[in-house]
């Protein structure tokens, strides 16, 4: 069985006492403890301003247990990448920010899309999944 683990350490001094959270999960296929995610796509690229782009150049199997990591590696803190899913705005990743989400890809409208702002953003992403359908060659 392939094994993928994701751990996070989150600390903050915004509360009256310091908050510290540690969490680790083993990324399994949907609803099972018997089999781990067994596919991945990993990329590191420049994202130019002006257009919205689908992040994943394929069609992941919908409604599974895929996990998506995305980091904005831009060194300028004013640069950001706007994240949308379908027509829903999710949020913005400024230079240095990362996110890690379960990615549903529920249908063709469930694609994660990214738009660079401020200048060319450098991003890194990794999709851990349990199946994709490659886009047909034109």
């Amino acid at each position, binding site marked *: 069985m*392939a*094994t*993928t*683990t*994701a*751990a*996070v*350490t*989150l*600390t*903050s*001094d*915004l*509360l009256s006492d310091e*908050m510290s*959270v540690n*969490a*680790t*999960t083993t*990324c*399994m296929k*949907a*609803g*099972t*403890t018997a089999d781990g*995610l*067994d*596919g*991945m796509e*990993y990329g590191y690229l420049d994202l130019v301003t002006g257009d919205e782009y689908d992040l994943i150049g394929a069609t992941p199997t919908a409604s599974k*247990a*895929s996990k998506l*990591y995305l*980091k904005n590696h831009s060194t300028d*803190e*004013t640069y*950001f990448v706007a*994240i949308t*899913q*379908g027509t*829903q*705005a*999710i*949020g*913005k990743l*400024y230079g*240095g*920010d*990362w*996110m*890690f*989400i*379960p*990615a*549903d890809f*529920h249908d063709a409208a*469930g694609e994660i899309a990214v738009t660079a702002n401020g200048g060319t953003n450098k991003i*890194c992403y*990794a999709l*851990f999944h349990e199946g994709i359908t490659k886009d047909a060659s034109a």
Partner: protein
Amino acid sequence: MATTATISISSDIAPGFGGISESMTLTQAGTLTDIDSTSGFQIRKLSATGAVDLITMASEIVEPKDSVASKIFIRNIGYRGVIDKSVGVTIGVNAEPIGLLYGGDWMMMPLTCIDADDITANPTTDDTVVIEYVMFFEEA
């Protein structure tokens, strides 16, 4: 000290993949100034299918600033120490399902914090499950 988040991912799916280890300091949009507000750490017990709000943006005691650098951490911690990988909770923004957090799974996601974009949780079964979460944002 500030608010920081460090992620470490290891995987043997692809030969030669060296893993990911990255940290971020949560800052206000477009600056190096630390983010200044939080919802506080909260838990929500769910025992039936049906979407509920984890965060109702229009009802936050401290109004979050819209469309900046807010983040939310959410984790499915199971129930009474039992983490069940077969019990999933769909996390959504507004009416859009983002994905399923199975037992033990966690997520960190940016937010718009506009009033329509409530953060929802919808269990896939009637099994009891507890979700813990904390939102970091800029005060409007």
